[in-house]
């Protein structure tokens, strides 16, 4: 469903070439639920943006749902749903309901189908209370639920989420997580998410990709990931170990 073959993206920054992502190769099958981990600036968002066609790879090849995202961007858009946790894709000044209405028309979703799906999503994500509120007035948790609904109104085969739980409280996080599990289980939607929250990984992902310095540093199940460290390490310890390989590490802060 998602395939990258030595994909890379470099940027020129003040004359110097920076490789945000390089030689990235992985394959995600239909129906998988994959988490993408990596330190800040590792290239996770750049990868996501190449997968949805926002950024054109400077080397290698990317395929999503059989399409080249940067060349067939608009055709691919009908088949994938994208959520950016840090930034809404909804219309800031319009009520949530109007944003959904615009999505319906942009994606040419049949009116009846749209109503059915919107009812389902409204119930599953509990959107009823703020349908008429302009997006800019929504709380982060409400906005994220709105964004999730918006990404699913056209029933995409693939759902790509860049930090969907960032900044959310435990209850909102739990709500989003169970919703994502349901979407994956009931609709068979392939899900790829990036996160810094290891709880997301433990509770959601069967498989983990770890990107570091723009390269794939680990690809395997959560079990495989835990097995990279000796003994009874927690997932935090395992991931810290992987993130800090070959780097000077500040000493851990002792609890007071």
């Amino acid at each position, binding site marked *: 469903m998602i395939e990258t073959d030595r994909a890379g993206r470099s940027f020129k920054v003040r004359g110097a070439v920076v490789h945000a992502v390089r030689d990235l190769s992985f394959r995600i099958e239909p129906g998988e639920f994959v988490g993408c981990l990596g330190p800040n600036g590792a290239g996770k968002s750049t990868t996501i943006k190449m997968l949805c066609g926002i950024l*054109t790879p400077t080397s290698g090849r990317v395929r999503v749902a059989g399409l080249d995202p940067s060349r067939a961007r608009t055709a691919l858009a009908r088949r994938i749903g994208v959520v*950016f946790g840090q930034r809404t*894709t909804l219309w*800031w000044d*319009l009520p949530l309901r109007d944003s959904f*209405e615009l999505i319906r028309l942009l994606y040419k979703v049949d009116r009846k189908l749209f109503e059915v799906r919107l009812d389902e999503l409204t119930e599953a994500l509990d959107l009823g209370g703020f349908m008429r509120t302009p997006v800019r007035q929504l709380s982060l948790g409400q906005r994220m639920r709105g964004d999730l609904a918006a990404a699913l109104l056209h029933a995409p085969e693939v759902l790509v989420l860049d930090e969907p739980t960032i900044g959310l409280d435990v209850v909102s996080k739990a709500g989003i997580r169970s919703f994502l599990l349901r979407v994956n289980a009931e609709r068979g939607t392939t899900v790829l998410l990036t996160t810094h929250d290891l709880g997301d990984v433990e509770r959601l992902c069967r498989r983990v990709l770890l990107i570091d310095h723009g390269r794939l540093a680990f690809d395997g199940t959560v079990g495989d990931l835990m097995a990279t460290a000796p003994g009874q390490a927690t997932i935090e310890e395992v991931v810290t170990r992987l993130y800090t390989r070959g780097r000077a590490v500040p000493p851990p802060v002792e609890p007071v």
Partner: protein
Amino acid sequence: MVRTYALLAWTWTRAAMAYRASFAIMVVLGVCLTAADVAVILVIFSHTTALAGFTRDEVLFLYGSAGLPFALCDLFVSNVDRVSQHIKAGTLDAMLIRPVSTWLQLAADRFTPTRAGRVLQAAGVLGYALAVLDLDARRLWMLPVMVVTGAVIFASIWTLGGAVQFLLTDAPEVINSFTYGGGQLTQYPLSVYGRDLVRGVTYVVPLAFVNWQPALYVLDRDDPFGTPGFVRFLGPAAAAVLALLAALAWRQGIRHYRSTGS
């Protein structure tokens, strides 16, 4: 495509109508400001009978025939020059994940219906000029051609301006001098300007084909700068070349888009 645009534009129109008073003030202000342009022309002709060899009504014809395509583009297309704002705010990413052309979404984004006032005003002036000028009916077929040609030329300039912003995110002011500057420039007979400027707007930025060259044909005039007769009919070709350039530049812009961090 037209349908999608119309529906997007309608959503923004509804949002703008939510503030009725401000909507009404904007329409009135728009009409007043552009009426001032016409007042300037009338003041000039209260002191003279000809401007660079053109009568008052002929100048009004030039004004209207440039103003109409310009106002149409200002209404329907000009928002594409907000690319840099969308790049900086990160909202361009949201447009790129939609199954509709980014150009179309940008053009329709925050559609400002109050700019329609300018379209009506320009059409009114053009209508008046047509009514009072005794034009050769066999030459009037050129009129719709020139409006379409002019609209394509202005839309292309706006699009080029937008495309440039993928590389230079601080360029909007420079682009304004070509778009709004071009709109102003074409309101008068080009013969009031210097020869080098007219060469520039004929052969480099083809603003002379918005109304000047075709209008010389409609008004049955020789070009004071002495270009041969066939140049009057080159407008559509010039517009097509410019549109092609704009489309290519836009494509390149999107492909070189760098997005924002995170």
